[in-house]
């Protein structure tokens, strides 16, 4: 996972509610291997017309915001499908953080596993940040994870919440799998006792399978 310590960048207001992962990256692109990158497919149907030309109204197609790296979003951002491609597409494009009043649960988890910092702030605070970001001269924000602080020109310093453990993992960019595998002893002890109490959980293959 990519570590997150501090970041300074352009804030991009995209405040529609319920932006689902199908809009972040449509399903027809999901077969691409991870290392091929998804930057060009981010918000594809919002960013591009059917003929592939850019939709000038979409914020990322406006020169002041094209290099954005902090997304200011609406309620329930990332709801819908569990596709982690939504996080990959945002990160491949260059986003390092998303600030919204609420998130889809699976998207929220997926983000933190990859080093995309997701911050939940009050609806009105996000609106105020967006208002500010709409003025090109005040579109920069900085985020300090250690201090749990967002700094903007007009709103000043804003504190945000994050679980201590998740913060730690993000600061280090640590691999969760390795950390869990280090608990091998505890897992095995639990597993043995648990499966002994619930022996039917280990499935036995059916005796007959009717073939097509």
């Amino acid at each position, binding site marked *: 996972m990519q570590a997150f310590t501090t970041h300074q960048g352009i804030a991009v207001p995209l405040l*529609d*509610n*319920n932006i*689902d992962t*199908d*809009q972040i990256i*449509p*399903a*027809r692109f*999901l*077969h691409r*291997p*991870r290392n091929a990158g998804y930057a060009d497919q981010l918000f594809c*149907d919002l960013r591009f017309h*059917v003929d592939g030309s850019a939709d000038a109204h979409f914020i990322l197609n406006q020169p002041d915001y094209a290099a954005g790296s902090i997304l200011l979003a609406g*309620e*329930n951002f990332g*709801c*819908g*499908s*569990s*596709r*982690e*491609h939504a996080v990959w597409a945002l990160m491949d494009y260059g986003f390092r953080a998303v600030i919204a009043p*609420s*998130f*889809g*649960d*699976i*998207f929220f*988890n*997926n983000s933190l*596993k*990859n080093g995309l910092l997701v911050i939940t702030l009050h609806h009105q605070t996000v609106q105020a940040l967006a208002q500010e970001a709409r003025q090109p001269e005040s579109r920069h924000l900085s985020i300090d994870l250690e201090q749990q602080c967002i700094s903007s020109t007009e709103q000043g310093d804003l504190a945000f919440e994050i*679980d*201590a*453990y998740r913060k730690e993992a993000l600061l280090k960019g640590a*691999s*969760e*799998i390795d950390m*869990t*595998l280090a*608990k091998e002893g*505890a*897992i095995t002890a*639990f*597993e043995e006792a*648990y499966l002994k109490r*619930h*022996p*039917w*959980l*280990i*499935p*036995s293959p*059916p005796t007959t*399978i*009717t*073939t*097509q």
Partner: protein
Amino acid sequence: MAKTMFEKIWEAHVVEERPDGTALLYVDRHLVHDATAQAFDLLNEEGHSVRRPDLTFGMADHYVPTHQDPDRQGHHDAMVSALETNTQRHGITSFGMRHAYQGIVHVAGPELGLTQPGMLLVCGDSHTSTHGALGTLAFGIGASEVTHTLATQCLWQKKPRTMRVTLKGTLPAHITAKDLILTIIGKIGANGGTGHVIEYSGTAIQALSMESRLTLCNMSIEAGARAGMVAPDITTFNYLRDKPYAPQGEQYDQAVAYWETLPSDPNATFDKEVEINAGDIAPTVTWGTSPETALPIHAATPNPAAMATEQRSAIEAMLGYMALSPEQPLQGLAIDRVFIGSCTNSRIEDLRAAAAIAKKGKARIPAVVVPGSWQVRTQAEKEGLDRVFIAAGFEWREPGCSMCVAMNGDHIPPHERCASTSNRNFAGRQGRDSRTHLMSPAMAAAAAIHGCITDVRNL
């Protein structure tokens, strides 16, 4: 202390807990499908092995073709074969294309008895909430968590809050679990369940068949909920009896004795309570691009001019995308295509309900029926449902996700309006610029034979 069903199952799976309440949970069942290739790539790159291949099962569904298409347009066979290669490599039992047990993972899992009460079940798909219908704690995870589960058979999770949705009374005739769940989402909103596990309870829920409970729990995620659950009871136990992977003989009795301890204690409290009167529910249809835009059939689209400024632009955008005007009645709205299928509504009961309506006429517009699994398809053919559909001009396809997500080449052409039994009406979900109206199988069949949205109660 009185506990909810969710709390009982959660606690039984805690390997370790952190001071902030995040827990390392043991996973009883992990289902993988053909859209999880990237998670296996990560596992293989990092050189991990699969800890419990015997508790992991594979299913091809998202990318499988549903008909013999000679030019293979828009197909991604490589994704289906990647699942085969990965599961073989790691010793995982997998049901590939045209296997007798193959189907949509959320249809085939319960039907094979792979899903059981009290289990913690995960799958790299948001509609994993479906499996909660059996009293299972089941939720969708992303690719990183799939890799983590493969390697460790465990997952770190923050404990969600609890919510109870109580359905009082009985459902009127012709009203299905689909109408019920669309009504619930319409009431609590697309994020009404965020951060919560929903338990559905009440007399109307207890009366539901297992198929209907699966439909109900399937769409819990459309209310933002982490999971949806129904307490296991005699309906559940009978459903699981003799399923291929369910416990057999003495082990079945032992399991039932455990399953009977799972329902929430009578005095258990929930963080949130919602009550709905089942008797008030009408056939329900969505008009916009979020499942929360669900309305009873006799209603009309909202008028943005009458709304608060903040909501106005969102409503206008949805009406624009859907090519609808303000205050347009849903009844009589012309439809271009019909899709009957998906993990929400492709089980035998759904196909029976759709066939009962298809019998009454001929499809005026293209309509496809995609059974949820080979077992469903075979059963339907035994009952002659395929012949009913074909005689009424519907296409009878092979099992898969198909037009629910348009990943396998099946899709709705741009700007066409589809009556669909699936679970998501998001912009572009069924193909770029497609327009989706969600409804029950009987309502979708009625739309096919009338060419427009029709109240199934009048047929």
